[in-house]
């Protein structure tokens, strides 16, 4: 199962990102685990300063904006 983490201090863009990933997974029929990380120490621990960031299976794959729909679909499926 793919493990997603959405990094961000709880702003609107982070919510939008988390929801988009959940929805893309549901549409693709893929089961995922998604955790929202709001703890600053952990966010910076990933080397991310610009939120929202996305971590997939322990690796940072995106930072600084809401990821595009194509990108999210690719993460969920690959």
């Amino acid at each position, binding site marked *: 199962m793919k493990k997603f983490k959405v990094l*961000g201090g709880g702003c609107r863009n982070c919510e939008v990102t988390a929801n988009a990933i959940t929805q893309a997974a549901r549409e693709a029929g893929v089961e995922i685990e998604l955790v929202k990380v709001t703890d600053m120490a952990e966010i910076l621990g990933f080397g991310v300063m610009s939120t929202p960031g996305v971590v997939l299976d322990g690796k940072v794959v995106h930072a600084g904006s809401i990821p595009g729909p194509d990108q999210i679909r690719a993460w969920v499926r690959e």
Partner: protein
Amino acid sequence: MFDAFARLVAFQVLRLSPESHLGAAIHFFVMDVVKIFVLLVLVIYVMGLLRAMLSPERVRAFVRDRPDWQARGMAVTLGAVTPFCSCSSVPLFIGFVEAGIPLGVTFSFLIASPMINEVAAVILVGVLGWKLAALYVAAGLLVAWFGGIAMQAFRPERWVEDYVWKIHMGEAAMIEPDKSLMGRHRYAVGEVREIVGRIWLWVLIGVGVGALFHGFVPAGWVTAHLGGDDWYTVPAAVLLGIPLYSNATGIIPVAEAMLGKGVAVGTTLALMMSVAALSLPEMLILRKVIRWQALALFAGVLAVAFTLVGWGFNLIT
């Protein structure tokens, strides 16, 4: 072109008289909405294609381990081309502190970033012309430079929350961008969507306020009271701007209407900077990393700097 279209809508389709208040306001509104949105989409798309926007992670890598003046110069200029969501200001602040970047330099960056950006600069040129755009950018750089130095003088380190010093940042995530033409195009379209989606409401409100000012405020009253002869108009403009917040692009049409009616240049610049850079909600976000003494100092330093810049420009223009 934009003017012709706005005339068509206001005076032909809606049959308003160009001399009426409403006619003037509607003409202004239509012209600015169309012009600013066309420019916005164009500029953001081109910047996106060139991948001209920097990530804060990259700025941090550039600025760290440099002598103070160099670090500050870079922070100020890079701040102008680094857009970031205000919700990022906390991790950004911590990341800079962790890299050993002096707080004064970090503040310079935090001042420059919301106030100046390449998108607003191009729209300023399109709406207000080269001269004012250059003035605004120069004023913004000055304030960011000296504002950071002033903050440093108060030794703001003592007001940083303790946990900030303990955070250790991981290897900075540098995501390799897709450099193919298609990848650039996709990125550019994404940027247009993201940025326009974030600021369209500010722009509409700004144009609305500008249109009302343009249509309904009599020029005679403006020249008499806001022409720049009274010293207190500049601090008043700064105070007015503190509770008001708009994106740097959204305030441009307001400035256009004010200048058109004869408000002094310095007074207008002071209001623009105060509205764009001094915002209470954004300051409160920073409360997570610095204590309120530092926040009050930050607001105070900015207010004084905007006032000085406003007076300065009123004197020389």
